C-alpha cells in the first residue's frame, strides 16, 4: 500500500501524484483522480478568492485515519490525499484524491468515500472574499447526506 496524506499551501500536480501510485507496477488496473477546483462563484455570487482555514494538529491525523479506513473497506493498492490551505484564487486546485486498485469499483467507491469525508468531517473551513465582504461558507445538507451513506457497512460492489 502506498498512502500519502499532505496538507500544504503550495499548489500540487495531480498527474504527478497519480503517476506515483501506478509507476513501476502492473497490478493497478484502475486509477481514479478527483481534483477539487476553486470556482469563481459561490451560490451565484462572484468570488475573488477563497481562504481555507484548518486545524493543523487534527486535520492530518483525521485524514490519515480515513485513508486507513478506506484501505480496510476496499482492496486498494494506493491512496493519496492532498489538501491545500491558505488563500486560493478561482481556477486553482484545492484538493486531490487519488485511489488505485485492481478493479474500478473499489477505486471509485474509495475516492467518493474520501471526498464525502473531506467535505463534511475534515477540520477545514472556507471563507469567501466577495464584493459584499468576506463570508464563511455554510455546510450543505446534501454533503452530509452523501457522507451518511458510508455509515452503513460497505457492500463490495
Amino acid at each position, binding site marked *: 500500500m502506498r498512502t500519502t496524506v499532505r496538507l500544504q499551501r503550495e499548489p500540487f500536480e495531480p498527474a504527478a501524484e497519480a503517476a506515483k501510485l501506478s509507476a513501476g507496477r502492473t497490478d493497478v488496473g484502475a486509477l481514479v483522480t478527483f481534483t*477539487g477546483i476553486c470556482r469563481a462563484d459561490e451560490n451565484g455570487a462572484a468570488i475573488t478568492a477563497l481562504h481555507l*482555514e484548518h*486545524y493543523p494538529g*487534527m486535520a492530518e*491525523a483525521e485524514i490519515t485515519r480515513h485513508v486507513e479506513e478506506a484501505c480496510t473497506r476496499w482492496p486498494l493498492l494506493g491512496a493519496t490525499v492532498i489538501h491545500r490551505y491558505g488563500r486560493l484564487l478561482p481556477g486553482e486546485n484545492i484538493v486531490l484524491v487519488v485511489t488505485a486498485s485492481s478493479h474500478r469499483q473499489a477505486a471509485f467507491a474509495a475516492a467518493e468515500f474520501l471526498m464525502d469525508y*473531506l*467535505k463534511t468531517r*475534515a477540520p*477545514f*473551513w472556507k471563507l469567501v472574499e466577495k464584493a459584499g465582504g468576506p463570508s464563511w461558507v455554510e455546510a450543505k445538507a446534501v454533503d452530509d447526506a452523501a457522507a451518511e451513506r458510508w455509515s452503513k457497512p460497505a457492500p463490495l460492489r
Partner: protein
Amino acid sequence: MTVKVLYFAWVRERLGKAQEEIELPPGIDTIGQLMSWLADRGEQYAYAFERPQVIRAAIDRNHVRADARIEGAREIAFFPPMTGG
C-alpha cells in the same frame, strides 16, 4: 484542571482569539456544559456560543458530541460545521 482551548473559523472571529488556557471550574463535566459556561464569560463569548447546537467540538483532536465528558482532556476545540474538500 487547566485545558488548552482552540477556536476556528467564525467561532475564532467572534471571540477575537484563536486559543487560550482555561482553568475549568468544578461542575463543568461535559462539552455542552463547557459551552454554556463559556457563553457566560462576556459579550464576545455569548455571541460566539449563541447557537451551541451548531457548534462542533473536538477533544484531543477527535470529534466529540456535546455530551462527551471532558475529564482528562488536554486540548479542546470549538468550530463551525466543516466545509473542506
